[in-house]
């Protein structure tokens, strides 16, 4: 709750706050503060400032607003009764968010979101955005989700416990677990479920496409506090690290996995050296095999033999 600092940002915020205030007329300061993500002191200061704005012959009277005893009062509105039109970036962002939300489990194209989206698309011409015949403005968001996503999302709304068969690549094993899903989210092309894991007694994040099967146990667990997706990737500081060098063709790795450090290498044009957390030795071996000659291992040196061993094991499959 820091509120805007730059003059442009403060004005931007004021220009959405004023029309809203003029419509409601009288409202507790606390509500304004919460709604527009500013402290009460900031709201009061900004409103006192605009109350002083004015042009001759209406100096100090142009915007009739004052705060008394924690309540904001607004007089007869003359100016700034309507919000400023959407800018192109705002229009695009809102359109994208609404389109992405339409891809989430449970979205109903015929429901309120679908109708709101259609009205929004129709109005974006004002922001200079031609949405075209299909209302997309040429922007399509595809969050294709694995088969079990909808069932997990539905279970999360009820706190329904379930048993899942889950594949863990780090150990290359499939195991049964009992979990209570809380939140389902999409990030960087994959879908995840945040759940309480009965086995480790911890809150864990599972990749949904690695869940082979699920079965509801019938038990319901009380839904506690609001739980949202974790901020970015969740990397444990205790996890061991590896240092590898990547050729340009292998640099998708940088976008796919969390990195501690990325630096260019002077004498190797286009290559970068990265330090990254390693979930398990097996995971690192698998990565080295996928990258082949586009990767150079710096440390740990032991990973070299591990990867070679794994490569030979896979090669054995081809000797039939």
């Amino acid at each position, binding site marked *: 709750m820091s509120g805007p600092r730059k*003059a442009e940002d403060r004005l931007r915020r004021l220009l959405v706050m004023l029309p809203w205030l003029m419509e409601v007329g009288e409202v507790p300061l606390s509500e304004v503060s919460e709604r527009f993500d500013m402290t009460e002191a900031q709201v009061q200061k900004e409103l006192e400032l605009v109350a002083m704005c004015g042009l001759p012959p209406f100096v100090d009277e*142009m915007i009739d607003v004052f705060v008394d005893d924690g309540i904001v009062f607004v007089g007869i509105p003359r100016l700034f009764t309507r919000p400023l039109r959407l800018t192109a970036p*705002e229009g695009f962002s809102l359109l994208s968010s609404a389109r992405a*939300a339409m891809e989430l489990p449970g979205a109903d194209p015929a429901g309120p979101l679908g109708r709101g989206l259609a009205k929004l698309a129709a109005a974006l011409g004002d922001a200079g955005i031609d949405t075209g015949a299909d209302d997309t403005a040429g922007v399509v968001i*595809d969050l294709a989700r694995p088969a079990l996503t909808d069932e997990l*999302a539905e279970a999360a709304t009820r706190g329904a416990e379930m048993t899942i068969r889950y594949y863990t690549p780090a150990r290359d094993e499939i195991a049964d677990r009992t979990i209570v899903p809380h939140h389902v989210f999409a990030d960087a092309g994959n879908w995840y479920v945040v759940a309480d894991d009965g086995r480790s007694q911890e809150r864990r994040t599972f990749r949904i496409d690695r869940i*082979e099967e699920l079965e509801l146990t019938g038990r319901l667990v009380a839904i506690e506090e609001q739980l949202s997706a974790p901020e970015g990737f969740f990397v444990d500081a205790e996890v061991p690290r590896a240092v590898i060098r990547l050729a340009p063709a292998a640099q998708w790795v940088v976008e796919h996995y969390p990195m501690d450090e990325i630096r260019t290498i002077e004498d190797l044009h286009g290559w970068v050296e990265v330090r990254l957390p390693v979930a398990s030795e097996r995971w690192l071996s698998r990565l*080295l095999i996928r990258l082949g000659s586009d990767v150079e291992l710096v440390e740990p040196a032991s990973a070299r033999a591990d990867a070679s061993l794994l490569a030979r094991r896979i090669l054995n499959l081809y000797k039939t």
Partner: protein
Amino acid sequence: MVDRVERLTNLLALLLETAEPLSLIQISSELVGQYPDQEQARRAAFERDKAALREIGVPIDTEMVTGGAYAGQTRYRIDRRAYELSDLELDTDEMHALQVAVAAVRTDSTNAQDAIWKLGGMLGDGQLHVSASLPERPELPAIRAAVAARASIEFSYRGELRKLDPWGLLLRGGFWYVIGHDHLRGERRTFRIDRFDGGAAGIIVGEGHTFERPESFDPRSAFPADPKQIGHAPDDGVEALVEVDAVRSSAVERELGSERVVERRPGGAICILVPASNLDAFRSWLFGLLDHAVVLEPPEVRTQIIEWLSDVARERTT
């Protein structure tokens, strides 16, 4: 010295209220004491304010006086109809649905949140059980604008200068793609935006309305859903026959679809057809399955996989 927000608000009010366009001299005499007296400093302060208003989306009209004593002078005003947001006439449940959408879809910018505020909505109510994060790329605004304006873009991609009529943008698999008519190749091509060599600064947007997007164009079907096929036309696709053992077979079948399974073996293993046009993507996918998968056909793909593995096996032991 007045607070800059106060001066900006006054300037905005003046330009909205005026019936006739105003010159800078007139503006500074209306806003008494708010702009510097010295001409150059006044012009500089006004230009900064004008840029600030335009940055937040205020449409300022300028016109040049063409005759008389003031010929050559620039005058300014704001058209109130262009300034004001037209009413979308959203029903309460529609507004609420858009609010939830913005709360559930995280981006790196506050643009969508600002839009919700302008539309009279608010954020952050209700429990969210599903969410998604949309990656923002610095290249996106320029490309989106070019798509909307039907303007060609030029950029460098893997060391080659490309000129593209951008038909549409697609977010798939966590990456943004732009799809359109590629002048260099003379046909439709797909480019991954984060692979543009020069980043946002390297994109040159041309004149608007220089092409038409094909009517039937849909980015979703314009290129293969499977990343293993990107970079190739979907109809010249190479497919590989892969045997997957019982440990991973059900996951692979779910991923690729049952219709691709050509054989079911006793014990749970399957033989399945996998797109392999993009060999890099195919190989990466295959090795993700470790020793649970083996390529049976075609021979040239099988040979390349064996060579790759032999290289890794050899290199690591020396």
